[in-house]
């Protein structure tokens, strides 16, 4: 039961509307992010998180009041929310500040939160998780995250340029950047925090979203030999159609496992699973509509590595590429 018997869509023709749609999402996402809808989690911004498990159900507003009553206005910008399933009676409290690093009181704010909860006469509770990240480590993680993303992309760019063609590599990287931006946009739309796990998801997408693109490029390279008289646009269109089934199925199988992770993986991994979910869908979309379109635009009429160039053309060009 094949999903697509013999698809014959003109994907290249749709590239401008597709690019328009992508730009619209990305711009909306950037605006949302500029409005602070994708706040940095404590991993990057520094701060204190305390997760408490109460012995019985506690209205979230009572916890919020208790935190707001903390001395020194610490609780003013605190975030208080349910953590995990409602039946677990778990509450997460996040304050933007930590104690001072140098004087050795890093856990001061966490201790203050616990003290405030105890004073408020709430049911008994135990602290099941504390995360305190000082500004030094926060800065470091942010820098490392950006570096890791840039290095990963440069590595992939170099590899594809080496294996295929620079224009293909740029197409693949543009598609990857597109996927990252779209994913960031959706993270902002759904009000996730930028945490280490989300960053891990983004980097995985960087590696993963190129995969489908490579499959298409690979097919383009193969088709070059049998379709040497056709223009690049046509060759690409055929390649996209030929690989459409596997593009969708491979994304689908990965998507199935990520959906399992999203539904059952628990609170800690939810951000990661959501990032992957959006990234994989966006990756498939960009593979079909964006990557090849960019490669075509950049390549123009120049011959392609691996293409058996027509004899008339080879004699004119001194710096011609070797046919393999």
């Amino acid at each position, binding site marked *: 039961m094949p999903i697509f018997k013999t698809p014959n869509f003109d994907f290249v023709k749709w590239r401008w509307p597709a690019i328009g749609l992508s730009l619209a999402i990305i711009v909306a996402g950037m605006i949302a992010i500029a409005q602070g809808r994708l706040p940095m989690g404590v991993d990057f911004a520094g701060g204190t998180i305390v997760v408490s498990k109460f012995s019985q159900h506690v209205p979230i507003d009572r916890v919020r009041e208790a935190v707001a009553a903390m001395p020194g206005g610490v609780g003013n910008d605190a975030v208080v929310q349910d953590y995990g399933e409602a039946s677990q009676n778990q509450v997460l409290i996040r304050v933007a500040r930590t104690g001072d690093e140098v004087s050795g009181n890093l856990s001061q704010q966490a201790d203050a939160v616990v003290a405030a909860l105890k004073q408020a006469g709430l049911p008994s509770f135990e602290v099941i998780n504390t995360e305190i990240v000082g500004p030094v480590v926060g800065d470091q993680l942010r820098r490392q995250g950006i570096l890791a993303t840039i290095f990963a992309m440069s590595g992939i760019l170099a590899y594809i340029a080496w294996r295929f063609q620079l224009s293909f590599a740029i197409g693949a990287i543009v598609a990857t950047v597109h996927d990252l931006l779209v994913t960031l946009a959706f993270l902002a739309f759904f009000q996730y925090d930028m945490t280490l796990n989300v960053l891990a998801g983004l980097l*995985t997408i960087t590696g993963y979203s190129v995969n489908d693109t490579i499959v298409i490029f690979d097919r383009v390279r193969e088709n070059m030999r049998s379709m040497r008289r056709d223009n690049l646009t046509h060759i690409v269109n055929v390649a996209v159609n030929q690989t459409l089934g596997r593009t969708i199925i491979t994304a689908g199988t990965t998507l199935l496992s990520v959906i399992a992770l999203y539904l059952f993986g628990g609170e800690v991994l939810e951000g990661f699973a959501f990032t992957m979910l959006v990234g994989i869908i966006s990756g498939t979309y960009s593979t079909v509509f964006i990557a090849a379109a960019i490669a075509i635009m950049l390549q123009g009429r120049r011959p392609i590595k691996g293409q058996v160039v027509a004899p008339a053309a080879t004699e004119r060009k001194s710096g011609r590429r070797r046919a393999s």
Partner: protein
Amino acid sequence: MYKNLRWKLITTLVIVLIFGAVGVYPMLANRYGLPAPGWLMAKQLKLGLDLRGGVHLVMRVDRDEALRVSTESVAEQLREGLQAAGVSVSAVNVTSPTIFRIEGVPQDKEAEFRRVADEQTSTNYDRSAVGGGVHEFTMRPNIVKDMYEQTMVQAIDTIDRRVNELGVSEPNIARYGENDQILVQLPGVTDVARAKDIIRDTALLELKLVEGGPAPSREALLQATNGQVPSDMEVVTGASDASTGQAGTSYFLVRKVAAITGGDLRSASVGLDENNRPAVMFSLKPDGARKFGQVTGSNIGRSLAIILDNRIQSYPRIDGRIVDNGRISGGFTQQEAADLALKLRSGALPASMSYLEERVIGPTLGRDSIRAGVTASLAGLALVVMFMLAYYKLSGINAIVAMIVNLVILLGMMAYAGFAMTLPGIAGFILTMGMGVDSNVLIFERIKEELGAKRGARAAVTASFERVFLTLLDTHVTALIAALFLFQFGTGPIRGFALTLIIGLLSNLFTSIFVSRSLFELVLSRRPANAAALSI
């Protein structure tokens, strides 16, 4: 036709058995009470901190402090050396952790000064004449590097000893992030405050002769010496009645050079003082005992200050020559005395530390995470299996076998190499399932295409695997590039994720090309050579 098929299948089976024995069997044995021989259980899959519960700390070592201490001591030694050589200087100033200046070197003693200074400092410091009798000494860059390194190694060793004394099993203490950071992971520890305190305390013990005090203020203390601190002495503070630990500060004048330091201790343990209160008893190494005997023997009747981290704990009177043991009392509780003994046994930290990051994961959360991870893994597995069977029929079994071999290798590899499974690691595990099947999808689609071109099944399978190999290589290499950078820059649990992904990608390349192909060949070898049909 497939003459190597038998060997391929045997290889696959052996790999599954080996990795399964290392990675999977111990888990099953633990859960279902199967026989568990020690040689098999030794290398089982470890759980990371986020699944077991425990403390994750990142601390910064103040490396410059170690340099400053060293520079100060070199400057002090040089001052004494110059004095002995009859060169009087007006001032010795430590201006930065690596630089000190000597001022007011008399013109006529310049040559003598240079001789003494070069003799004492030229191995570690560069001397430059600023002019007007002022000389500046700067620590050499390679020495700075060595001392930084040495400080970190020493700090990690000390923390390691302390953590071991605390009785934490499988702690992880390692260099981290930037050059001056240390990661400390303590699985199963719940008393965070105590653990933090024990790790961080410098625990620098010095015993110095008291020359003056106690006095209620610095001014009162220095009245006898006209407000000046004599050059071979220093002022140290302590509780006003240190033996009872009462509040309030009093001032003491003590010798700069310590009679003995924590480095001279052979051991330390908890005991009781003369008032039956907890105290720390210590004994000395032979060298320390000799020094201690000399000092105590020639200073009977005077007081000896016991200084811990620059604060006087007590200042007992020397009643007679003491050779190889002593006692520190100072109003400790039993716990405080035990912790101090522990810190003294494990030695002083070379510099002070501060905490930069602190994560505490309760055992409840860990258990919940394991449950969620296992549920998600099983659900993911079920979804992928159902899809592959429905879409690729019998060939789907092929992909599922390859995927399971992949997961067994992944678990076995993690267990064998001693990598811990973290919650993000489980995410990597699930992702490996999804991505592992991808490779098979690419192969299967190619086979379908080749079959559509009216080739025989055998030719189609052979051609497909050959064509797909390069595609798979390219896709895996790009994913590996991203995973490697994630590993390189990642921290803690993220590293666990990257690691699972890297091992998963590598083993997946193997299973999809080698195992999956062998299975196809196994099926086809039982058919006539010209068969065209394949359940795909």
